[in-house]
């Protein structure tokens, strides 16, 4: 396996981990932030796959604005979740 492939596998594994954490933590603020991390990993993956425009957009939209929207809502409702 080349370095790039290793990097690829590394990101893929961490994506799954991030997704699971984002869905399992009880604190919605943490969940939102982890979701941002997830998006950022995704954006790295896409950049590595040659989809620079998509990666750029995901960085701005997914990791940036989406997470902010989530956090804004979490602040306005409540932070703790039952699951």
């Amino acid at each position, binding site marked *: 396996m080349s370095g790039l492939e290793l990097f690829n596998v590394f990101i893929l594994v961490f994506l799954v981990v991030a997704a699971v954490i984002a869905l399992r933590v009880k604190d919605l603020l943490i969940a939102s932030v982890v979701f941002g991390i997830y998006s950022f990993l995704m954006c790295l993956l896409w950049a590595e796959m040659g989809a*620079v*425009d998509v*990666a*750029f*957009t995901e960085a*701005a*939209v997914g990791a*940036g*604005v989406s997470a*902010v*929207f989530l*956090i*804004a*809502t979490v*602040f*306005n409702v409540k932070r703790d979740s039952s699951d």
Partner: protein
Amino acid sequence: MRKLAVAVVVLTGGLLLYAATDFAAWGDPESPASDSDVSKHFIAETGVDTEVPNMVTAVLADYRGFDTMFETVVIFIAGIAILAILKLTGKDATKTPGKRKDEVDDAPDLIVTHTVRLLVPIIQLFAFYVLAHGHVSPGGGFQGGVIMGASFILVALAWDLPRAMDRLSVDRAILLAGVGILIYAGIGLLAMFLGGEFLDYAELSTIFPVSREMARYHAMLGVEIGVAFTVTTVMFAIYASLSSKGRLEGGL
């Protein structure tokens, strides 16, 4: 619910994996998706048709410009819908909101505000760069617009919403979002009135002194600006609405 979810997940997963066995090999340039006339046309002839080096931008704004127009419309819809859903009317609107329990200090943090003061112009400059340079490098109207919108959001985060709204009030933001759509659809309509189909930018060459290819090139910039207008304003409007429970005042 959980059992149902597991059942759905197992079924869906089974189907997906079943399909995955039939996929073309990873990164195979001969795969039908990469080897079809359409895909090849985008790579081989974008430069010929539009003179835009960034194929993604060309496909986005020209070949599939109609999609992108509706994508902009989707953003616009989101802005309108969120404002409408959260908007308070009648007596509710005039009532002052109760203080939140965890609200400690209204004064914006000095370090943060100073940093943001420095950052915002740079971010906005970068947004313009991304927008304008989208033809030759990654970027374009969406990315530029989101970054621009983020700069306003940053202002709102660092100080408070009214401070950001001084620069771009939500009412005006929605108007500008409409202007963005008008720019996009207007260019399409102009092309139509000049004798082509809707969004046939090449027809613009009949009124501007450029070749048909360059007409497409410039019109793409035009529509990207339209997109950027909408995205910038709507992103900020959504944030403003979500962060203030639709009251459009105070901060997070």
